[in-house]
């Protein structure tokens, strides 16, 4: 550990005061919202020395403790909850902690990506280790100074004590000395039972800035001389630019340049998260967003079909060549193609027992098919990024989930070594998986290089919705075989998608049924897809959990009891190998939600109740949804949720996230869907793409966490998928009909009008 002191704080103070004056400069050294500390930092007696105890921790002589959040924040609360983990082991007084977003530096700050509900899970151990090591360094420093054995030193709330001699001091007193001590390894961690920061709700450290409208987001980022750029992309998937005339555009006020831009060379090898929705772009650059938006309208463009194309992909070492069809796709045609493809043979992903024989011998076979459309992420803050690229170096700043995944691409394209590329991570106005794809950094960088200026690329809402990386279009057919005694003897899922299938072959109810078959197929498409909050699961949980509900009914069983029986079976006599869930924990959330929702209580019979449970991202979630009819429409009035994600770091924020996932789930289940006509998105703004609003949100969402001492697992995604299933099941009780096609509001209307050929 180098003994580093910096003047960071003085600089950040100066930057923020510039901001207070004109609001034009923004500094990405964010201080926490705690007034006491903030006031101290703004005093003339400003701390100007920060002693670094770890990549995550710096301390001033007057005991202000700065903790760097390593991971991009998109609303999942990592800016607060990750520093809480450090503070816990460090033994810091949370009131003395200021939190700052860390730089992109994976040597010091680890993997730095937000995705797969991984933030807390992957940082749990490293952050605890970092906090414990720093505490130990402070203890050693005090022991040396006081000439006492280090074992006799105790700490509490940012202070060190030696009881026998009555000596005490703050962390700040020893920060300088401690920063020179080598970082110890394997320091004993706290007993989970003794946590006093973790498991104790802390307010969002950026709350004050958010409610005061301070610049936090990429769209707020600004430097002197910065230009604004927007991209005119093809009007349809499968099209490219043929020619353009920008003469009128260039005459518009504030417009600097219009040019054509090729994203990737033809032989470019794509990384796993590189994507080129459109490779040939038309760019308008100007000084003011509105002027650029206006000038775009004056472009005269001619587009032509791209035709089939091939792409070389190297996804984290797995190389393949993919052919992307040039067809201008329409949702109705795609839907019919899926129907046809679903009848043909598929790839067997898992097979237990003899499912063919079991289905042949069955007394009853139940078969249902479920469909769901593309979904757009619709992050509240549209895609945008700042770039300033020169021949020597590049600076990027904006909303991004995984800087480390786009950096190699930037390095290749701009021919700069990674040290010459700085990526600053701003707070994101939502992500949901969309911002794991950094193509917009490539775009912003290329525009900056061409324009020879610092540039902010901004997507309009329409750009954002029609130039997306969507949740794929899915279908799955579920079959169950029952014997004469209505026992479940075989289970079959055959799922497909455009362009990716949804099947998780080792998930429940795999392992609980003797004869089991999981199959998949895929149809290629030129519509770009990617991760969307709980990929695949967000469809499976709807389909599978609706199907299990229907099965339970056919078998004359209570839906929760039926699931618990299957889980009991999976626990006692698991079928097959690689079952990827823990049957006990799965059953645990079902039992908890049964209990908390008063599942069998007569007073709850006035509600049309639906239940669903699901496992993904290493966590378990179950919901009971209580539906009523409001103004003639089904409305989810109450929800009960039970979650097992191990130790909950910041309980109130975790509750907020589960509530948000429930609202998001209800919204997408009822209204979500992006459709195409001849390659063109049929929805391009919120007037056409319906997002759930406050009057459609439940009155209450009652969230319960299983209390255990298991290391934390994911939370951002797991509560989301089972909402779809619970809504579908409640809908059945509310309307007397089963709905198989998302979004359900459309299915309800289609059913009323006897339209069954149209999917969405």
């Amino acid at each position, binding site marked *: 550990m180098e003994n580093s002191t910096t003047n960071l704080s003085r600089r950040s103070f100066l930057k923020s005061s510039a901001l207070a004056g004109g*609001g*034009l400069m923004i500094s990405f050294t964010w201080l926490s919202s705690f007034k006491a500390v903030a006031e101290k930092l703004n005093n003339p007696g400003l701390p100007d020395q920060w002693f670094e105890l770890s990549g995550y921790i710096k301390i001033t002589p007057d005991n202000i403790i700065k903790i760097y959040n390593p991971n991009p924040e*998109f*609303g*999942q*609360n990592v800016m607060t909850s990750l520093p809480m983990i450090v503070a816990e082991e460090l033994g810091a007084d949370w009131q003395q902690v200021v939190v700052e977003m860390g730089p992109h530096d994976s040597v010091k700050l680890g993997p730095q990506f937000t995705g797969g509900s991984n933030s807390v899970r992957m940082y749990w151990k490293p952050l605890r280790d970092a906090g414990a090591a720093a505490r130990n360094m402070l203890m050693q420093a005090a022991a040396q100074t006081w000439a006492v054995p280090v074992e006799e030193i105790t700490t509490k709330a940012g202070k060190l004590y030696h009881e026998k001699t009555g000596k005490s001091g703050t962390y700040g007193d020893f920060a300088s000395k401690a920063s020179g001590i080598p970082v110890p390894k394997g320091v004993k961690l706290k007993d989970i039972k003794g946590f006093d920061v973790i498991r104790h*709700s802390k*307010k*969002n450290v*950026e*709350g*004050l800035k*958010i*409610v*005061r*409208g301070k*610049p*936090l987001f990429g*769209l*707020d980022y*600004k430097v002197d001389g910065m230009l*604004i750029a927007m991209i005119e992309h093809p009007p349809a998937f499968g099209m490219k630019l043929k020619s353009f005339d920008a003469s009128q555009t260039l005459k518009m006020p504030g417009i600097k340049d219009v040019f054509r831009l090729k994203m990737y060379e033809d032989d470019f090898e794509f990384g796993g998260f590189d994507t080129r929705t459109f490779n040939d772009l038309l760019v308008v650059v100007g000084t*003011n*967003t*509105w*002027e650029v*938006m206006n000038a775009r309208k004056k472009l005269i463009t001619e587009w032509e079909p791209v035709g089939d194309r091939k792409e070389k992909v190297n996804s984290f070492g797995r190389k393949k060549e993919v052919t992307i069809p040039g067809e201008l796709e329409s949702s109705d045609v795609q839907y019919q193609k899926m129907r046809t493809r679903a009848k043909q043979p598929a790839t067997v992903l898992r097979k237990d027992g003899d499912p063919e024989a079991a289905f042949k011998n069955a007394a009853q076979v139940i078969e249902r098919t479920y469909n769901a459309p593309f979904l757009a992420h*619709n*992050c*509240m*803050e*549209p895609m945008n990024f700042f770039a300033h690229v020169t021949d020597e170096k590049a600076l990027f700043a904006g909303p991004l989930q995984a800087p480390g995944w786009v950096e190699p691409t930037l390095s290749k394209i701009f021919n700069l070594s990674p040290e010459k590329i700085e990526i600053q991570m701003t*707070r*994101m*106005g*939502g*992500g949901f998986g969309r911002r794991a794809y950094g193509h917009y950094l490539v775009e912003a960088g290329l525009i900056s290089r061409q324009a020879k200026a610092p540039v902010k690329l901004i997507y*309009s*809402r329409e750009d954002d919705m029609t130039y997306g990386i969507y949740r794929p279009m899915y279908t799955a057919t579920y079959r169950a075989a029952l014997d004469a005694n209505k026992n479940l003897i075989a289970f079959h899922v055959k799922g497909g998608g455009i362009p990716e299938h949804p099947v998780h072959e080792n998930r429940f109810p795999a392992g609980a049924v003797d004869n089991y078959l999981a199959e998949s197929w895929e149809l290629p498409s030129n519509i770009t897809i990617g991760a969307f909050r709980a990929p695949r699961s967000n469809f499976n949980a709807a389909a599978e959990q609706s199907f299990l509900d229907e099965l339970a009914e056919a078998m004359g069983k209570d839906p929760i009891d039926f699931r618990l029986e299957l889980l009991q079976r999976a626990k006692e006599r698991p079928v097959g190998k690689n079952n990827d869930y823990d049957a006990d924990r799965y059953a645990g959330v079902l039992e908890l939600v049964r209990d908390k929702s008063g599942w069998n209580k007569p007073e709850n019979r006035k509600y049309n109740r639906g239940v669903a449970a699901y496992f993904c991202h290493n966590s378990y979630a179950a919901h009971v949804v209580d539906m009523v009819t409001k103004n003639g429409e089904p409305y989810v009035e109450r929800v009960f949720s039970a979650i097992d994600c191990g130790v909950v770091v910041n309980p*109130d*924020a975790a509750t*907020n996230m589960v*509530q*948000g*996932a429930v*609202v*998001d789930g209800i*919204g997408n289940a009822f209204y979500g869907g992006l459709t195409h006509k001849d390659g063109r998105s049929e929805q391009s*703004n*919120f*007037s056409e793409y319906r*997002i*759930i*609003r*406050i*009057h459609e*949100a*439940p*009155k209450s*969402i009652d969230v319960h966490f299983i209390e255990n001492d298991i290391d934390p697992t994911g939370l951002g995604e797991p509560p989301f998928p089972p909402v779809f299933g619970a809504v579908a099941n409640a809908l059945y009780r509310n309307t007397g009909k089963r709905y198989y096609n998302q979004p359900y509001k459309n299915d309800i209307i289609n059913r009323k009008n006897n339209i069954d050929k149209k999917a969405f």
Partner: protein
Amino acid sequence: MITLNINQKNYEVDIDPDMPLLWVLRDVIGLVGTKYGCGVAQCGACVVHLNGEAVRSCVTKVKRADGQKVVTIEGLGLTNDHPLQKAWLEADVPQCGYCQSGQLMSAAVLLRENPNPTDQDIDDAMAGNICRCGTYLRIREAIHMAAEILRKGS
């Protein structure tokens, strides 16, 4: 030349009078608390007060605000600790936070007109503000809390 009184400060700006107030605030004046979400009056991220009324600045031409009083999130409450802001922090409403300026500005007009709103009143008044993160329940809770703060005069 357009004259604007924004958060009790006067500005003279030489711009196209048709430019939406949103972009004048963000790109010309440098007040970026007001957010762009849709540009077509659908999401409410851009709500500001024009002479005390909630307007969607993305569709409000700046000429409409000429010589008028505009309040943005940066000017909400005299010392920027409006009861709603306190309540928002207490209920820890935000997730990503992007929609929240607009939510607060809409809620401020609601509370002024109706100091004791029911859930139904809140739903009616706030239906124009999308929160993609789904913080609606906490928004309701925080508005009730702010009403309580106002009633107690603290």
